Structures are given as C-alpha cells and as structure tokens.
C-alpha cells in the first residue's frame, strides 16, 4: 500500500464515517463503496472537503454483474461425450443477487492533491436508479446519459435523460449482459419502400473463444510491478 493511498483512506474514513460501506486499496487504487441513498451528500463532501477537493469527475461507468464469475466452459462436467463447449444461445442460470446486479462506478480525480478515487454504488435489478450528480459536476450530464442508454440506469433529477449513443428509436439497453452481442434488429435499405427498414437480425450467434475461468499460478513467477510513489 503506498503512502499516498493510506493518507487518502484515512481522510475518507474521517470524513465519511459510517456512510463508508467498505474501502480498499488494491493495485494501488483506492476504491470505496457507498449506498445509493448517500450518493449526493457524499459526492458533495468529496468535492468540497478541503483535504480532498475532487474537482474532477473523470468517468462514470456502469457494470452489469449478471454473468460475473460464470464461465462458458465447465470442464468438470466431462462425460462420455467429451467436454461440452457449452456456448449455446441459451443463457446460463441467473444466480446473481438481485440487489447487486448493477454497479455505477465513478472515477474521481483531485488535481490539487493528486488523488484518484473510485466510488462504487450497487443497484438492484428491480430499481436501477440513483441521484444524478450533474448538479455537482457538469460533465456527469453526458456520462449519465450514456449509462442510461447502454445499461438502463435511471438518474433522478437529471436535466435531460435521453439516449446518446444508440440510434434514434432504439429499443433495449445493449451493454447489459442479457442483451445479445448480435442484437435483435438490423437495418437495411428497402428499394421498394424507398427507405431504411428494420428487420430481425440474420446473423447467427457464434462464440469463437469460450469464456474460461482458471486459477493461474504462473502470474507470481513474473516480476512484480515496481512499487513506485506518484510524484
């Protein structure tokens, strides 16, 4: 753990107190988890506290934890037929806890103190909504629109929550894990109608490389990244 991160964690524990669900320092990055109800007040604190001054919101990204930790290829299920590649179009069982399906991850940067911080906020499958931070950082406007567009996360009190990256009239939230990679519709030009039309996709889902989860022990043989203090 680097000195700088230790300092940051101490300040965070001091300022946030019990509202800090958990905090960690892994790979030299500080991550904290908070509850969605506290989001606005905590974000304000992070920005305005003299010792933190997170004046910059670098990024907001949503994560859908639906398939987390599930591989396509279960090698222990070998039978007389050999191994199954297990990558049909059917979905694997959904056993993620509903209350932690989505996560909104904020990356903050303090130019004054040279701190970086990751704030995570888990949301349930039933109500993926939380407060908008667009009033705190203007840049959040578009980042939240993006998270809404791609993951269907709703931001309360957002000034203008519209789709941003997908097409006009697009249906669904494409970056969710239950949205197929090839999508549902494709567009083509219809010469008879004289316009572009939507039709069901004609491409078949195909997985070239199945997702495999392995415990690799070789990693420790490589030389570790040198612990360097940030200037």
């Amino acid at each position, binding site marked *: 753990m680097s000195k700088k991160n230790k300092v940051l964690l101490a300040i965070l524990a001091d300022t946030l107190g019990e509202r800090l669900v958990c905090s960690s320092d*892994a*790979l030299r*990055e500080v*991550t904290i988890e908070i509850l969605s109800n506290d989001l606005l007040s905590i974000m304000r604190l992070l920005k305005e506290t003299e010792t933190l001054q997170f*004046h*910059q*919101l*670098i*990024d907001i*990204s949503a*994560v*859908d934890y639906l*398939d*987390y*930790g*599930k*591989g396509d290829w279960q090698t222990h299920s070998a039978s007389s037929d050999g191994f199954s590649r297990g990558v049909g179009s059917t979905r694997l069982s959904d056993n993620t806890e509903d209350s932690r399906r989505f996560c909104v*991850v904020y*990356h903050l940067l303090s*130019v004054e103190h*040279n701190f*970086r911080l*990751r704030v995570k906020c888990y949301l349930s499958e039933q109500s993926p909504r939380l407060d908008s931070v667009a009033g705190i*950082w*203007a*840049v959040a*406007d*578009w*980042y939240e629109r*993006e998270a809404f567009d791609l993951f269907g996360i709703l931001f309360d009190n957002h000034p203008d929550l519209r*789709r*941003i*990256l*997908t*097409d006009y009239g697009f249906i669904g939230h*494409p*970056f969710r894990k239950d949205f197929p*990679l090839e999508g549902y519709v494709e567009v083509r030009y219809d010469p008879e109608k004289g316009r572009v039309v939507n039709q069901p996709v004609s491409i078949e889902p195909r*997985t070239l*490389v199945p*997702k*495999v*989860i*392995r*415990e*690799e022990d*070789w*990693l420790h*043989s*490589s*030389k*570790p*990244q*040198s612990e360097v203090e*940030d*200037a």
Partner: protein
Amino acid sequence: MPEIRNLTMNFGPQHPAAHGVLRLILEMDGEVIERADPHIGLLHRGTEKLAENKPYNQSIGYMDRLDYVSMMCNEHAYVLAIEKLLQIAPPVRAQYIRVMFDEVTRILNHLMWLGAHGLDIGAMTMFLYCFREREDLMDCYEAVSGTRMHATYYRPGGVYRDLPEMMPQYEVSKWRSEKEVKKLNENRSGSLLDFLQDFVDRFPACVDEYETLLTDNRIWKQRTVDIGIVTPERALELGFTGPMLRGSGVVWDLRKKQPYEIYRDLDFDVPVGTNGDCYDRYLVRVEEMRQSAKIIGQCINWLKANPGPVILEDPKLVAPDRESMKGDMESLIHHFKLFTEGYCVPEGEAYAAVEHPKGEFGIYLVSDGANKPYRVKARASGFAHLSAMNEMVQGHMLSDVVAVIGTMDIVFGEVDR
C-alpha cells in the same frame, strides 16, 4: 412589425467541418448561437461490448480504432490496464519504445489536428504542410508494425517486436524516377532510429514554418482569440483534460503528475495557456509538438545505447517465437493455448490512464478471472470535451462553432466508441 423567431439549424452529420459524424442541432437568433445540442453515436460500434466477448489480446486492435488518429496511445492505456491486473512490468527497453511511439503519436495527432483546424477556419496551406510531416511518421509506424495506422504494436508484457534495423525504401516505378527515389531514400539508409533522429532534427524548423503561417497571422487571430473561453474552474468541472485543460491554465499532465513507464526520467516541459481560448489551446498544442520531438530525441539516445529484450519471456502470456515453436513441443502447446484460449487475468479491477494527445484516455477493466475482460470501459477525453459544446458556443457566431469543434480536437472514433 414582422414576427421574429429563432432558427433551428441542422449542422452535419456530413458536414466536412464536423470532423466526422457530428450532428449539431443549433438554435440560433440570427447568426448568434443560443443553444447547441450535439447528437452523437453515429459511429457507435460497441467496442466495449465487443472487447468483453474476446480474449484480451484480440481487442488490442480495436483500441487503435477508437481514436483513429492517435492509435498507439489508445493501445497503451489498454495494455497498461491489463498489465496492472496481471501485476507485471515490461522490460525497460519496451517502456522506452512505448514512450517514443507515444510521442510520435502525439505529433501525428497534433499535426492532423493543426491541419484540419487550419483548413476549417481558412488556412488551407496548413493541411498540406502538416501532412508532409505526417507521412514520415506514418512510415515509422509501418516500419515497426507493418501498418501505417492500426498498428496493434503494444502487447501486455512489452511490444510486439524490436525496432527494425532498416527503414523501408522507395522503389523506382512509373511514377518515380531514379533520381527522385534516391532523394527520397536519402534519410532512410539507416535504421528506424536514424530516420527518427533525422526527423527530430528537422522537425523544429517545420514547426517554425507552421508558426510563421499562423501564430501572428491577423486572420488566424481574429478567428481564434477570445473564442470559446473556459475558466480553469469551469474546465475542471466540465471534465476537461489534456491540452483543453492546460489551455485554461491548469498545470496538469499525467506524464508529470502520475508518471507511467519511464516518463519520470525524461526532461520535458508542460506548456500551459492563460486565457483559455482557442488561440491559447493552439499555442499549447504547438509547443507540445516541440516537446514531443525533444522526448523522442532522448528516447532515441537511450535506445541506441541499450539493446535488450522488448517483451517479457513468459510463455503463458507472450507467444513463443516462430523458431522454437517449430522445434519445441512445449512452445507449440503454449502457442496453441495462447491463440485458442488466451490467458486468464486474476480477478479484480483496474483503471489505467495515459496522457493521450487529446487528454486523459483511460481504460477501466473489470476481470472475473476469465480469459476475456468482464467489463471494459474506455474513458475518452473527446466525449467529455464535446459535452461542453453547448456552453462553449453560446453567444458566439455560427462560424465560431467550427473553430470550437476544431479546438476540441474531436475524433468520433473515441467519442462514440
């Protein structure tokens, strides 16, 4: 009294000054912009989702296509994120090569930006001048990776191969006489490093040329001074990074403040502006080109003196060389496993950012221990910059919109992802 109402104008997505596929809905009172609503996503290819469905190494090429005028810098962030999760560090020589090519890329990007920005607001010559120098740097890309743009050169653990001993030569053809070819090949007789050294030596004079055309040019100043002013406080709130932030006078450069690779050993300056207008951002970028040339020079000296490996020798991560693969069973198996399945990355999450020519380009990577990333999020600086469009053009004239688009250095590959 005639009825006066605002005019709504549609700008793009096929307008040449829109730098790609930007569609702007402009609400105007006469020629003054009251509101600008950028519609983006026309180039959305779902890069992040695609990357989540491929082994790690297969997505490096996608990163090139994000910001397609600064290819290797995108790769750099992605590769750094993987390396962070794997907890490995590339050999020092690879780090120098990466830094050198990052700076080559920065010059490439800024030349493209300067040419296009100039062209947009009436300086045709700039485009021709800038592309003349870009050509040489493109040749460096080609020499090292085989392609002029989408290099896929950086790999987790280092770079794909060492710098070539020979530069590709021009050949005599129907269009090029022997005399011409001889002249073209003059500075290509040595290695790539010699060629780059030659470039670095003559490049400052080229920048002087650009500056004679623009810096004190009356028309250029009329079009850029006091256009799109952003205060430092506002720049931070709007998520500005890179030259956009420095143009407003905030001294912030990841290469200095959170150095990655070997930037801490290099000597260079970070230019900042004072007024935060288009002209200051122009000056910042021009100075950055000079500084990049300086960095490249330092890298060349080091690389010439210090031969060594350019990628880790870890068969689980890096493909074995062709020769051993043909003769050695182990290598063949490693090769097969690497190319059919890839490698598994330990569970965790990492955010790696680089000082991209346009700003902070970061990759947020979540791994669940599989051979494919669970979530890849590309933090593109252009996205944040473009979101400030409305604020920056309000109260300006229609023609200034073009100047503001130019000054943002927008590339839709990264904005739309």
